[in-house]
């Protein structure tokens, strides 16, 4: 096993220079996520339009390269997508992380698929799966107006 499988170039790039790491203008939903075991924190800001399309999404927070890269990749991937589509993408993403299944989502471009696949190395590091999924679960909470903070240990 090579550590480079986990820290692929795309992951390192997103980890070091996260995209959409700010409070997006005009957000109408937000939620916080916390992993109390390691201290990773995210705050996801979401602008959903009337048709439940993700008009804009951003995040703030701090954590390891995996959690930051995953949050960054998430915002890039689901911006402009319908919420239901975004949920499907998450489902595929989770399957990739937990079952090791190949990602091949019709609603994503080849580039988007490749970017998401860059996180597939996490599968071999079970302790790090929560790092990779924190932002995604927080996004769902925001979209579904759940008030409580996402807590990976609850």
């Amino acid at each position, binding site marked *: 096993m090579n*550590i480079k499988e986990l820290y692929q170039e795309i992951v*390192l790039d997103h980890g070091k220079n996260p995209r959409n790491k700010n409070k997006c203008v005009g957000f109408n939903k937000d939620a916080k996520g916390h992993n109390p*075991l*390691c*201290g*990773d*924190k995210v705050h996801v800001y979401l602008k959903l339009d009337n048709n439940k399309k993700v008009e804009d999404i951003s995040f703030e927070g701090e*954590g390891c390269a995996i959690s930051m890269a995953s949050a960054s990749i998430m915002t890039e991937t689901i911006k402009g997508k319908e919420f239901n589509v975004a949920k499907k993408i998450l489902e595929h993403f989770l399957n990739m992380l937990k079952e090791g299944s190949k990602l091949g989502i019709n609603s994503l471009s080849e580039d988007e698929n490749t970017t998401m696949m860059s996180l597939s190395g996490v599968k071999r590091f079970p302790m790090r799966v929560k790092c990779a999924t924190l932002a995604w679960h927080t996004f769902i909470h925001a979209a579904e107006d759940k008030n409580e903070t996402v807590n990976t240990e609850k």
Partner: protein
Amino acid sequence: MDTKVIKSKFPIFKNKINGKPLIYLDSANSSQKPKTVIDRISKFYSKEFSNIGRSVHSLAVTATNRFEETRDLVKKFINAKSTEEIIFTKNATEAINLVASTYGEKFINKGDEILITELEHHANYVPWHFIRQRKGAIIKFAQCNEKGEVDIDEIKKLISNKTKIIAITHLSNVTGAIMPVKKIVDLANKKKIPVLVDGCQGAPHLKIDMQELGCDFYAISCHKMYGPTGVGVLYAKKKWLDVLPPYQGGGGMIEEVKKDQITFPGSPTKYEAGTLQTAEVVGFSESLKFIQDIGIKNIMQHEKEILEYGLNEIKKNNSVRVIGDPKDRGSIISFTIKGIHPHDIATILDEDGVAIRAGHHCCQILHEKMGIAASARASLGVYNSKSDIDALSHAIKKCNKVFNT
């Protein structure tokens, strides 16, 4: 000290981690166990096991004797005055909770002050927080300075007529700072304030002599002393155990039970409710023998040498920031690497078989004070050598390489 010989006494080091020899630098979290400890538990279950202190058959007598012999060993090891002052708990956390709960119940009232430090592990803060909530008490935090140590004057400043207990760590599990326990006890004695010492990191690495330290309570974590998990020790001066109420209720801790009245025996029985972790306690006797065979002075000298070498080596890497620089330091090097989160560090190190801890190490207040969310921590045990440090330095360079920093 020949660490090869010492490592050979620990079966875990025969294993490969990710195809590499295990470089174990997480002993502050929990130490590894020598074969003698593992074998002792097995022997106890195979040949001597029964519940203790209850039945009169032969096995019960044997098991009780082995258990009480361990209590006597602990008494001698820490130089307590009597075995009545040695209470077995499930861990050091329970030992501190026992004191917070019973002492807090009896002696701490609204507006009274509990004096702790910013260095404390959550185990020496949260139990006092419960008392703060239950009794309306106040917790005062002695500040730690930029070196990651607490100045004695800081403690002196905060002692007031309302101070009901001082609870301090012996050795910080983040900065490695060794607290001047004796001086703090002297200070507290003048005001008749009892002192509790969280000895989780102190007991495995320092000479702990209760008569010399003079503290009222000392909490020990046996699994950090090359012993089994599930065992802690509370040392408490008998004068406290005589007046404090029982902690948990149940079998084994009673004298006489009537429908309208229950009486309790003296210590330690009063504080040991229910069936205890018998085999683990007996196993712990071998941990003490292991430490005594090497000698705590030799252990201290060896660890000091490795610590100094480690600090020196790790500081050669410009991207590394070591947390704290206490004058008196033991067994712990917490650090951050510029641009790399501690969890990523730990994962990359693990690839090389180097086991460290990453996170806040149950010290969120201290990390906040240091302006960081988390740190990486390499902590030493008697089995660590300079080559372990070299492996650590090498693996840290690999982090730089992976992250291009």
